[in-house]
């Protein structure tokens, strides 16, 4: 049923000066990386990507960057405090391919770390580009290294790893390697550039999109994308390149809570 289940925060991990991961006991059944949960703090409710899916320990986690009122309220919570969760929602990443490049930018690393762990666990070679503005904001390095995936860090200011944007490092990496799948989540401008790149390299790829959401259950139409009307909360948030070619607003604009368009 599409109603929140109230759970207690089991653990909190400080990932960076701005990002915390909140971990909950949760009976993992259909949850996969790329799915999202609607997170209710008894004041507001927002979609949050799963950054941890552990079907053995029956734990899930969501990672939140403190960027506004809602995220600030959640960041102030402690272990044992309650939150409401409903989900999992949407179509997650399909784990396919034998050598995968996973590109995460900023808090977009949340589903990428969960994906990398799961894909590595079943024996797929995964290279992860973890892009951030600066070294203190590089996320999930320990988890990625522990998973067996190869970590390639990248910062805008060059304070850690490759100096430049995630897309610059992706281009270099794509030239040097023979991948048969690319997955990505991050700022849409980055994903748009990466999308054009994988089209050039003729590689199948999956991208996780973000749009303003209200119901999360496919009814309100708030997250429908042009021109085919697909609901990011049901048909997405993960789309394949052949679908993205038909999402004309990708990399162009988004609609706000009232439905007014804003250019990216």
């Amino acid at each position, binding site marked *: *049923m*599409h*109603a*929140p289940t*109230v759970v207690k925060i089991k653990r909190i991990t400080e990932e960076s000066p701005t990002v915390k991961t909140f971990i909950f006991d949760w009976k993992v059944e259909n949850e996969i990386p790329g799915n999202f949960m*609607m997170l*209710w703090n*008894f*004041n*507001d*409710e*927002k979609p949050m990507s799963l950054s941890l899916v552990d079907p053995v320990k029956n734990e899930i986690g969501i990672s939140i960057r403190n960027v506004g009122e809602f995220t600030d309220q959640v960041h102030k919570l402690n272990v044992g405090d*309650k939150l*409401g969760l409903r989900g999992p929602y949407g179509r997650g990443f399909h784990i396919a391919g034998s050598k995968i490049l996973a590109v995460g930018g900023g808090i977009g690393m949340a589903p990428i770390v969960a994906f990398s762990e799961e894909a590595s666990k079943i024996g797929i070679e995964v290279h992860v580009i973890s892009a951030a503005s600066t070294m203190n904001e590089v996320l999930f390095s320990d988890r990625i290294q522990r998973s067996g995936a190869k970590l390639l860090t990248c910062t805008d200011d060059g304070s850690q790893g490759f100096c430049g944007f995630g897309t610059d490092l992706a281009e270099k990496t794509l030239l040097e390697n023979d991948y048969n799948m690319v997955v990505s989540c991050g700022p849409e401008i980055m994903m748009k550039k990466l999308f054009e790149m994988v089209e050039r390299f003729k590689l199948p790829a999956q991208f996780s999109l973000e749009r303003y959401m*209200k*119901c*999360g*259950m*496919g*009814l*309100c*139409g*708030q997250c*429908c*994308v*042009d*021109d*085919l*009307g*697909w*609901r990011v909360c049901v048909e997405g948030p993960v789309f394949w390149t052949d679908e993205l070619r038909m999402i004309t607003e990708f990399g162009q604009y988004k*609609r*706000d*809570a*009232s*439905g*007014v*368009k804003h250019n990216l």
Partner: protein
Amino acid sequence: MTIVEIELCGIKMKNPTMLAAGILGSTAASLNWAARSGAGAVVTKSFGMNPNKGYANPTTVEVTGGVINAIGLSNPGVNNFKVELEKLNKSVPAIASLYGANPEEFSEIAARVEGLVDALELNVSCPHAMGGCGSAIGQDPNLTSEIVRSVKKMVKIPVFVKLTPNVTDIVEIARHAEKAGADALTMINSLGPGMRIDIETGNPILKNRFGGLSGPAVKPVAIRCVFDVFESVEVPIIGVGGIRDYKDVIEFLYAGASCVQIGTSIMYEGMEIFEKIVFGLERFMNEMDYETVEEMVGIAHK
């Protein structure tokens, strides 16, 4: 020979199903998608004069037999919505659902979109609207009449009026709307309003605390409303409330609806619901030897 095409207020529809107002429908893209999925006509999400963010989340929660919602009529405003209406592919008739606070607002919005749609549906029945809109109007027969009259004076295209079941006597409101010039009546808007409270914390789940109930649970109420109003008005009735399969559609037709709208059940069935329902209806008509949908309208009244 079974024919599912119908004509409603002079508008030809390839089948008697429409996408209901408020479910998807806030962009040309999702309206065109419903059309592509087999809907006989599409109704937009309600829009008003100015952009409106609606209520904060949670705006929707599932309950037994349906959903309660308090989206709060979020929309980008008539001028932005016109840009969407211009992008409709026109493969099926389009109906613009409008809301406002007074006759002037309704007729002004109606005038701005008249050239872009085939009909209007006046939302005087939203149970969680702010600022004197929605059911605050539809629960008042005189105010309803005033609004219908002013819109009818302004436009030439058919005007449907969507009624709220949350009144003592829906027949009275229906009669007033008809007398004021409504070309058809859409019934019912969501029921209640209702509430759901989280038992772990005691918090009402919806930010607005209460919201309109839709989905299969409201169907018996909708059927009764259609049945009662059918006996008292001449204009066609568009039945809506809890339709999930073709059998529900037949019940509405038998109660007196000329066609139906489908909304919440898209959550259960996906956009394929239109195609599935029309197929089921055709098969039923074939088995029962009905040639036209019209023959089935009001059968429960004999």
